[in-house]
């Protein structure tokens, strides 16, 4: 265990990257998810079809495969990405697909009467979406969004395969150096656990604050 403490700064740097990967890909995932959800609900036929295809592919394949395709596979087509860039893209695109499903469900669960009331005061479909439907949908989407968020924190460990120096990768480097497995794996296990329960705690408070609003 002493080994873990001696190398704590090295591991904490990895944990920092894990958090950064989570936050950045969640941010872009939210934007992608919202755009795709609206495209699927309001777009014309080809756009709806493309959006559906995207969601289906991402949800139907392992994240690990998506990561290696973006990092190693695209090289064949002359697209060479840095490992960190590839990680951001893979994780954002992946989260976007799942979040789009969350948003779509949430938008659909806003009662039809809300739209009708908005239309009857002369709002355009876009105004009604932005001012009336989305604020209500977001509230409905927050608990499942929180789950995706925490899931994302753990799934970032997969980008260790493309040598991004996040928490798991840092542990593997230390293991290669000291030929000791258990202390490092246990150590990062605890660190993941602290981060995800911390995140869950923050999200829960946020959720409760929003729930109180009306």
């Amino acid at each position: 265990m002493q080994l873990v403490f001696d190398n704590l700064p090295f591991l904490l740097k990895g944990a920092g990257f894990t958090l950064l990967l989570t936050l950045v890909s969640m941010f872009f995932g939210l934007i992608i998810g919202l755009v795709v959800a609206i495209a699927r609900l309001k777009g014309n036929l080809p756009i709806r079809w493309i959006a559906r295809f995207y969601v289906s592919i991402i949800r139907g394949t392992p994240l690990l495969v998506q990561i290696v395709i973006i990092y190693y596979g695209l090289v064949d087509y002359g697209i060479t990405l840095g490992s960190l860039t590839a990680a951001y893209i893979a994780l954002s695109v992946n989260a976007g697909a799942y979040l789009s499903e969350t948003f779509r469900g949430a938008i659909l669960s806003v009662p039809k009467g809300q739209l009708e009331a908005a239309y009857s005061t002369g709002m355009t479909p876009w105004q009604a979406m932005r001012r009336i439907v989305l604020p209500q949908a977001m509230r409905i989407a927050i608990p499942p969004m929180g789950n995706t968020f925490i899931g994302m924190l753990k799934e970032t460990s997969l980008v260790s395969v493309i040598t991004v120096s996040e928490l798991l990768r840092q542990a593997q480097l230390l293991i290669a150096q000291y030929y000791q497995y258990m202390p490092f794996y246990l150590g990062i296990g605890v660190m993941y656990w602290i981060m995800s329960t911390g995140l869950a705690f923050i999200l829960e408070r946020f959720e409760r604050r929003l729930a109180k609003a009306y």
Partner: protein
Amino acid sequence: MITTTGLSKHFQDHEVLKSINIEVAAQDIVVVLGPSGSGKSTLLRCLNGLEDISGGSFEVNGIVVDATASRRLRQQATRNIRKQSGMVFQQFNLYPHKTALGNVIEGLITVKKLPKDQAVTIGRKLLDRVGLADREEYYPSRLSGGQQQRVAIARSLAMEPAVMLFDEPTSALDPELVGEVLSVMRELAQEGMTMLVVSHEMKFAREVATKIILMADGNIIEEAAPQRFFEDPKEERTRRFLRQINEI
């Protein structure tokens, strides 16, 4: 103010409105009666563009929607009509994420693009008019049904409509809350608002309406001034309807 000419509506092969001709003049209070499923809500929804019409045409305050016109023209006309007509729903449909005042000023800010302080001034005046000046900060979940419906009426009035459509505004209310909504509607009528009201409130119809229309199975059965309608109906169907109402 409102004229429909051969207005028809079908859902798939189900004919819900069969060539409806009605006329609502300025300052008229027209009450539409009829059994459940007769097409009353559908008629109002067509007039507010919430349903696309299948045949015929209608006109609201000079704006014409014709079933034979292109879809784009119809949608454009519909949007203009909505700016001139208010609609009040059976289920209120208040925005739950906005306060009473927020509900009233939403259209002023989003559609009319008024500055916030100006919208708030108008909103407060309207809440006062429906007797809810002290509830402006309340969210709908903390208002009674009657209060919610009055906020909904204020929200419609905020857009300064030339005509108001009411679809069973008191049907979802507990009996003791019906009166407060009806009295707001009576005041509106006295102030000269043009109103088309679907309702089962017979006393209101008798006392406030300038004309009663009975609908059944997508047709207009009879239309007459209240006195004649209730005292001396011409149609057998109307007599049957009034007998059924009186039994309840």
